[in-house]
């Protein structure tokens, strides 16, 4: 048990450090980046290999890859963060309503959850992106609306088990309204697992953005998104490998950080559910 908790902390520390570093990079991007990621472009500098003025080389438009990777942290983090906030709000609210109200609402919401679980997220997101058009805001919407089913399920299960517990009964007898019981009494108890799902979900969202970019419906150029950079560099993998290597590593490290952080958090907050890993998180 001792070993296990130390191990959990290792994961937590390792993942947490990465995530904090990426967050710092995103915040300080304009200070760290030597060039503007979009406007400092000169075709005369097209596809220069790493070294000299451009530490990570330049892309086809002649933009500094280092600056784009640094600014890309903002895009990727916002993809992770915004979509997970949306997913969590939707999932938790629906889960609370389903679990607490029961009957009709439960059937309706669980039916919807089953539907959401059955449609592959990437196909659903793709259809929404096709309807809205590519772009960062639309990406937030597409990924924020499609991946809340697990949160909803877990919230509902927690509510069902909490409902029978004494403190909820007590609150009820004291005349608290349903809404306030839901949000002040039950919600704090589900924060742990929801946080774990959101952390792992951030990793998934960043990879999904890359996959959608590959399919042509990611954040729109010239937005310096890592997925977009990696995707547009795929024809140049052997001509200008630096164009794929740096954004590739950036995605890998960041996603790794979120995954390790999520695993660590789970071991720490929610050790019982260790076996029931969230499924379907692979792109």
């Amino acid at each position, binding site marked *: 048990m001792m070993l296990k908790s130390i191990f959990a902390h290792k994961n937590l520390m390792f993942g947490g450090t990465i995530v904090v570093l990426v967050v710092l990079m995103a915040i300080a991007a304009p200070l760290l980046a030597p060039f503007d990621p979009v*406007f400092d*472009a*000169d*075709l*005369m500098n*097209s596809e220069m290999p790493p070294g000299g003025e451009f530490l990570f080389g330049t892309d*086809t*438009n*002649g933009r500094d890859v280092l600056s784009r990777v640094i600014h890309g942290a903002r895009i990727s983090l916002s993809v992770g963060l915004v979509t997970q906030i949306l997913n969590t709000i939707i999932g938790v609210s629906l889960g609370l309503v389903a679990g607490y109200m029961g009957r009709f609402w439960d059937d309706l919401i669980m039916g919807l959850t089953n539907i959401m679980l059955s449609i592959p997220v990437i196909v659903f997101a793709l259809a929404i992106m*096709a309807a809205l*058009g*590519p*772009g960062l805001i639309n990406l937030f919407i597409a990924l924020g609306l499609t991946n809340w089913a697990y949160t909803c399920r877990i919230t509902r299960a927690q509510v069902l088990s909490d409902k029978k517990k004494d403190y909820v009964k007590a609150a009820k007898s004291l005349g608290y309204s349903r809404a306030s019981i839901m949000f002040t009494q039950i919600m704090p108890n589900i924060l742990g697992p929801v946080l774990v799902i959101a952390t792992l979900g951030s990793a998934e969202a960043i990879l999904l953005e890359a996959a959608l970019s590959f399919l*042509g419906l990611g954040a*729109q*150029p*010239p937005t310096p998104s890592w997925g977009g950079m990696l995707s*547009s560099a*795929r*024809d*140049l*993998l*052997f*001509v200008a490998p630096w164009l794929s290597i740096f954004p590739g590593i950036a995605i890998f490290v960041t996603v790794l950080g979120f995954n390790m952080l999520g695993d660590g958090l789970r071991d720490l907050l929610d050790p019982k559910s260790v076996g029931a890993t969230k499924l379907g998180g692979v792109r």
Partner: protein
Amino acid sequence: MNLNMLKCLAFAAIVGFAGTAQAADSGGEFNFVAPYDGSILSLDPHKTSKQQDLLVTNNIFRSLYMWSAEHRKPMLELANLESVSDDGLTYTYKLHADMMFHNGRAMKASDIVYSYERMLSMKPVSPNAGHIQIIQGAKAFESGGADHVEGLSVLDDLRFSITLNDRVDPAYYFYRPGTAIVPQEAVEAAGDEFGLSPVGSGPFKFEEWVKGSEVKLSKFDNYFEAQKPYLDKLNFKILQEGSTRDIAFRANELDAILVEASQYPQYKADPSYSEHLVEVAEMFTRLISWNADYAPLSDKKVRQAISYAIDEDTINKKFLKGKAYNPVGWLPSTSEAFDANGKGFGYDVEKAKALMAEAGYADGFELEILGTANKSYGVGVAEVVGQYLSKIGITVTTQQLEGGILYDKLVAGDFQGIIWSFGSGVEPLKALKRWHSTTANDSGNYVKYNNPEYDALLDKAQNTNDEQKRVEYLQAADRIFADDAAVWLFNYNKAVLAVQPWVHGIEPVAIEIMYQDFADVWVDANSPRAK
């Protein structure tokens, strides 16, 4: 530049002729690609207008005429022209004798009539029906007002005549792979599924179609050209990812591929491939259409300033890696009326600024350019254009849309600028007529171009019988169009096929380089897939 271009063409032609100069080897298998948008949809040439499908059916079927890479125009394929009536409207043809369909039946004149009538009468109508509508009575037949197309008559087993609505050269309509001749009994037997197991009269017959993966064809022994085709087997592999295609070709799994701009310099630099590139200026002109209803763009000076401010030569060299030809006018360098002495605007920021000031836009304005995700003529290029225009104060934003939606906006006039690629072949007068003021704004003249001087020159060209004068009028018209800068001319596409050293007979086909006629292609003993 122009000299280089000619060299390329000459070189490509030599590669092409090499196939006929040497004695061709028979046998072997050829792996080609279908590089465009994913799955092949149908192998029924009347039911599809996608290049991806037609580049395959082009070898299973034959049309009345066929594009000749050598003559750079459509030539008669299935028949001889016996006569043309005095009014220039009725053409009488005689089919070659002993032309067989793959089911063993000889082609008859009635097959031509059946095929054209089928395109008009199918529900939904054939996307290629537009080419057939030049025949007298086609519209009446299509709308159900007549039992037959009045302008189509069978004279005897092999002879037939076609009467047209206007004096146009039918070659430019009936050479399209989408107007191929199909055998009635096979079509009727297969019903909706004819496109799944096509029967044509081309050099290769259909063997197998692994949906989403490849189409396999095999040699048709009774093909009417003696000794052809040379190949025993021909496979079209569906490979839409440029990087996947590139790796597969280098691993010798493919015998020829379409090269993307990003990969072009590498093939140019690689001695084992650089001598086996087939290049052609495809008859597509890439451009940004300017909407003259947007106030700043209604001023010719502003449009000219834009053209001066953008360095298309550098964009073509650096961004497209030299896989494009600099434009001088609307007509591409493969057009018979191409103006070899023409010049583009060139790159001159000072002149651009002066023009902007003259027009009263010294402080610039905002401009939105729409485009697809296409790497050669999409938003990526518009971004680079924006980099240049920022130097004369124009702030460019770009928006990526899908082709269908973009087309909708183009037709509706709902845009400021749209970057796209338009067909600018095959017949130069027809190509230039797109910008004639009488052309509907929703069917080609999207920028509402209207210059009486231009119209007059085109009308003169249409009415003259002097071939040289005609070309002069057309070139003069093209110069006026270019100078008015109604569109920003970006380039003519340079289509490139990389071909393995053992392959012979791949041609620079200017209408669409993927429309290869494999009747003429052969592989020597060095091929890993030789017999």
